[in-house]
Structure formats: C-alpha cells, structure tokens
C-alpha cells in the first residue's frame, strides 16, 4: 500500500492509542466524590462514546474509500451527486441522537439547580490572587473567616529546588467542610472576574464583582480535593488554587468549635503589646502571604506598577502615613485596601516588618492598638 495509506493508518492508530490511554487515571475527567460529579462523568462518557462510534464509522468509510476508490488502482469514478432520502436520513438520525443526549443532560441540570435546604453556608470571595472563605452560622452571622493563599515557594517555581507533590495546588488555610451535609457556596469577587472550581465535586462558578453567585455540593467521601481558579484574572491567575479538606462530620464539628474559640482568642490579642521579634515574625508571615506577589520577596517591587519598599518613601517615612497606605490602599492603583483583609495585629506586624526589612531600619515600633487608634479613633 502507498505511503499515503500507511501514514493515515499510523496517524489513526496513534490517535486510538491515545484515546485508549484516555480511560486511565489522571487523563480523564475524575468521577469525583459527589452525586453531581458522578452524573456529569456519566454524561461525559456517554457523549464521548457516541462521538467515538460515529467517528470510527465515518473515518472507516473514508479509509475504505481512500484504499479502494483510487485512480492508481484503476477505479472509475461514479457520477452520482445527490440523494434526497439519504440527506433526510442523516439529518433526522443525528437529531434523534441529540435528543437522546439532551434528555439526561436536562435532568442533571435541573438537579444542579435545586438549591434549597442547605446545612451550611460559606461565602467564597475571589481576590487577586487568593480566595477568602467566611463561615456563617444558622442565623447567617459571620463566625470566622480566613484567606487561602498558595504556599508553593518561589524556590520551587523558579526551579531552584525540587517541586513538592502538590506543587501549585497547596495553600496555607484550606477550606474545610463536612461530609454528607449540603454546603452552599455564595461566590463573588472583590476585583476582577475569577472562577472557583473543584473537579472532584463537579462544581464551577464564576466570581463576578458586584454579583452574588451560588452553588452547592454534598460530598460523600472525606479527603483533600484540589482545584484552581478558572477565569483569567491577571498576573497570578495560575497561582491561586482551591484546596478543600472534607472531614467526617464529627471531626468537622470538633474543628469548627475549635475555630470559633480561636476567633475569640484572635480578637482578644488585638489589645496586647507585642515584642519587636514577635512583630517581625508575624509581619514576615503576612508579607509573604499578602504582599510578596507584587512587592517581591526582597522588597524591590516591579516599578513602576509595583513600587519598591526597600528605601521606599512610605516605608521609611512617617509611620501613620505608612499605616494608612496599607490599610486604605491607593485609589487608581493595584494597591488593595488591606484594612478590610487584615486585622490590627496583622497590619501592625506587616508595617513593622516593612520598616525593618529589605535593608530598612526605621527604628520605631507599631502595635495593634496604634493601628486601632489611628484608623478607628475619632
């Protein structure tokens, strides 16, 4: 057989081999751990199979024709060029196939839209470039909340050390939810459009500024499930993962109680006095979580968009102006109002850190109560 046919055959076989592999792990959509994800997986498999079958029939007919109906083999061309019944047939049969798929797809969609009767409500807020989770009690009061930021180190990203197992899919504070309870997520964004996705749950929703979106899930198996932001949101779109730890109900309840207590402790700490070392340590943690993406680990920034903090006008200038800059942000720039994201202790710590790191050494100290007095006092 000629080169053409060999080429076509090897191309086809390679493709088939790849699709065979498709049925393996990590190469196909996950079945997931919710009813919804399983139904979606089934829909996906059904439509994939239909497409593969139709494709095989079509491409086999083409291959047969390429082999048999060739001038080089002496084949004489027929001259037929229309057949209305055939046209009708291959219009109506596909319509029937489509209806056969549309019916189960419609049912799954209707199930997904059944949003009532939730047991737990969590707010999900997208920021450039991190997620914030806020837990609500049954009266919809905020109990506690936290930010969830990527913890993969720059050393790994810049190829200076080996990459960990969960490279780019690990965070400091994962979302925690219980098994077997209906969790409703209320999703929005505080800047650009983001999207929250956990493949194993089969849920994805855009986080749109000014709009509240919702989705729900009931997870049947405990474990850690990882997803990512799935709407281009700027520079670090690829660096704001979603990590959810699903705990058995009693473990979750225990954790929740602990967290409520921890929240009380956090609030009480806002009036304490801290040592310089304590402030530097906490400040470094806050800086490396919230500030480093723009201002860089060495405080050099990326001028002119992200100013340098080393020998910066603000970071070595009057302390109150420094506090205000971090708290209020700067309108018309990328500098967010961190007063709405950090508490007084975190703010005081990061201000102190910035004034005494990167070669700066202003020599003053900033306590949480200084921040409270400045920003909350009259």
């Amino acid at each position: 057989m000629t080169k053409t046919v060999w080429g076509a055959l090897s191309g086809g076989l390679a493709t088939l081999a790849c699709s065979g592999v498709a049925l393996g792990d990590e190469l196909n959509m996950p079945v997931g751990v919710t009813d919804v994800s399983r139904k979606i997986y089934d829909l996906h498999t059904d439509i994939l199979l239909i497409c593969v079958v139709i494709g095989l029939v079509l491409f086999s007919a083409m291959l047969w024709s390429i082999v048999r109906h060739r001038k080089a083999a002496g084949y004489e061309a027929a001259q037929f060029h229309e057949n209305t019944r055939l046209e009708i047939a291959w219009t109506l049969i596909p319509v029937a196939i489509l209806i056969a798929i549309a019916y189960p797809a419609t049912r799954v969609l209707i199930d997904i839209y059944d949003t009532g009767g939730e047991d737990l409500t969590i707010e999900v807020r997208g920021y450039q470039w991190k997620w914030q989770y806020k837990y609500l009690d049954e009266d919809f009061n905020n109990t506690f909340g936290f930010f969830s930021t990527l913890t993969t180190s720059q050393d790994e990203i810049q190829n200076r050390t080996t990459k960990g197992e969960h490279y780019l899919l690990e965070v400091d504070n994962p979302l925690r939810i219980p098994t077997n309870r209906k969790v409703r997520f209320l999703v929005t964004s505080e800047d650009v459009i983001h999207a929250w996705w956990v493949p194993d749950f089969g849920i994805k929703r855009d986080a749109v500024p000014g709009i509240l979106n919702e989705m729900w899930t009931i997870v049947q198996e405990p474990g850690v499930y990882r997803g990512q932001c799935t709407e281009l949101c700027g520079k670090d779109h690829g660096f704001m993962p979603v990590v959810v730890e699903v705990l058995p109900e009693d473990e979750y309840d225990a954790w929740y109680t602990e967290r409520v207590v921890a929240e009380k402790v956090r609030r009480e700490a806002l009036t304490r006095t801290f040592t310089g070392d304590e402030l530097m340590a906490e400040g470094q943690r806050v800086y490396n979580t919230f500030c480093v993406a723009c201002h860089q680990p060495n405080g050099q920034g990326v001028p002119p968009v992200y100013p340098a903090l080393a020998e910066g006008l603000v970071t070595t200038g009057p302390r109150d102006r420094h506090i205000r800059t971090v708290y209020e942000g700067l309108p018309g720039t990328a500098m967010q109002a961190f007063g709405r994201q950090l508490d007084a202790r975190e703010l005081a710590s990061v201000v102190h850190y910035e004034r005494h790191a990167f070669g700066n050494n202003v020599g003053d100290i900033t306590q949480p109560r200084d921040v409270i007095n400045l920003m909350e006092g009259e």
Partner: protein
Amino acid sequence: MPAHGKTAAKLMLIVVGMFGFGFALVPLYDLLCEVTGLGGRTGGQYVIDPATHTVDKTRLVRVNFITNTNAGMPWAFWSEKGGVRVHPGQPKFVKFFVRNPTDRVMIGKAVPSVAPMRASGFFHKTECFCFEHQMLQPGETLELPMRFIVDSQLPKNIDSIHLSYTLFDVTEIAASAPVGAQASPVEADAKPIGAD
C-alpha cells in the same frame, strides 16, 4: 457603478443598524434582567398594595445579609444582624452601617445582588440605600436603613435568600451625583478591624 453604490448603501444600513443594536443591547439587557431576575437584580422601588397584600404565617424564610467591600474600598461596612427570619409578606426593617476610616472625604456606593436568582423577583425593597452615593467625612459613620418584604408568593422550595451588597469607592466618578439623605452620623461602636 450605480448598482454597486446602491448595494453598498443598503449594506451600510445593516452595519449602522447592527452598531446601534450593540448599544441597544445595554438597555435590552437591563430589561431582560429585571424581567427574569438574571444577575440577581432586585428591581426598582416596591410599593405595597394594601388590598392584595397578604402575610404567609405558615413559614419563615431566612434572609442573609452579606456586606462586601471592593478590593480598593477601605470603608468598614456591616449590618446590624447577619440575617433575619421573616414571614413572606411581612415588612422588615434592618440597619446597615458604613464608616470612612481614612483622612479624606470619600463617596461610596453599594450595589445589591440576590441569590438564588429565582428569588430576586420575590425580594422587594421598599426603602434602600443601594445605588445612592453616600458621602462620608474622615472618620464618619453613617447608619443606612433598609426595608424589605419577601413576597408572599415566594415558591415553597426557596427557604433562604441571600442579599449581598458590594460597596465601591466612587469618589472619582461621583462629581455631581445625589448624596444619600439618610440618618445622621452615628457614633456607633467602631467595627473591629478585620472582623467583617
């Protein structure tokens, strides 16, 4: 070539028409959103008709108040209560608060959104601060009242409604807009930093 000129002129009509259509999509979209509740729009001011008004005492609906501030907005924004329970048809009054912690005059604007989308047509605000420009002096706190009624015809399978307000800094773009004429500045207990 006259034939081409005529053809071209007719085709330009399509072009101009479609350009206009693109802009017409803006009010069309607003209209569609109000009619279908798309985007969680809550519609305009609602007036109670005493003749047809009923209260469904057989059930309570939970209403969740979510206060957000856009990433560039430093104001504190909170509601008196995280949520309330109401009977469909029962008028309810809730208080929201905003505080300007900066050292300059600023103007803020709150934008509402309701979830689930199906519920937005049944959530009526009779008095609301949304979309109004609120001007605050440095350090000033303002109380913002909001009155609403959940429609007594709310479908039975909706048991909770979530109302989110996102507060934006509109100081730059609010050159000559009306200022919200709400309650006097309140020396409320300042909201602890970072606790919202």
